[in-house]
């Protein structure tokens, strides 16, 4: 069970709204220390390209991010990104996650995270022990949504 630091969900949504501007997808990586990997206290917004239906982090940023994770003993626990309309895990989401190990989570936020979002409208996927993405129940996986 991931526990979100107070205010982290709100700041994630604000990031989506500021970057995506209701017109483009956006992504944030939720991070934690290796000592307390279930306590998510970081929301890292990558330098990325984006369209209404796609996002991709920039290569240079991506490498520096992985170097910084190792140096600071931190780890990515989930990727969180927006879709223009409904939340689901697309073929692209399945094939190109930033981390591909069992237990990794991917949370999809509908409607470009516009105001009025409900937790029930989110879609959560988890990589199982066989390396396959499966839908996961949010109440069983993440707590600390504060908006």
């Amino acid at each position, binding site marked *: 069970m991931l526990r979100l630091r107070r205010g982290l969900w709100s700041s994630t949504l604000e990031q989506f709204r500021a970057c995506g501007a209701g017109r483009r997808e956006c992504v944030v990586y939720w991070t934690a220390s290796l000592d307390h990997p279930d306590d998510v206290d970081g929301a890292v917004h990558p330098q990325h390209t984006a369209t209404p*239906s*796609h996002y991709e*982090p920039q290569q240079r940023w*991506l*490498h520096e991010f992985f170097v910084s994770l190792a140096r600071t003993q931190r780890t990515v626990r989930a*990727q969180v990104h927006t879709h223009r309309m409904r939340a689901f895990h697309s073929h692209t989401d399945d094939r*190109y996650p930033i981390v591909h190990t*069992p237990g990794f989570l991917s949370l999809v936020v509908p409607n470009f995270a516009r105001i009025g979002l409900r937790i029930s409208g989110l879609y959560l996927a988890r990589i199982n022990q066989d*390396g396959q993405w499966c839908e996961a129940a949010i109440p069983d996986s993440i707590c600390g949504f504060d908006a």
Partner: protein
Amino acid sequence: MEDHPQKNQPPHHPSQIALNIAYNGVTKTLDHVEMHAQVQSVLARALALFNVTDRPHAQGLFREDGTEVPVNQSVQDAALLDGQLLYLRARTPQGGAHC
């Protein structure tokens, strides 16, 4: 005149090295890496070390400066050194509603 037996010996080239591999913040050591082994096999071992369940060609080993270690070379030809730190990561993570 003093004897210097080590002076004329050729430099020592180990047949095996150890590599440090970092993935998602965690660093582990890959021991007994043969110098003549292909980097592709090192990548496969690194993926297994971290239980990465993705397709091998979607992942790569990167040096500190961000350059990728070509998989179609030997460890020796790639000039990898004993104790060197490499970063294992997805080549092009991305996502979105577009399938």
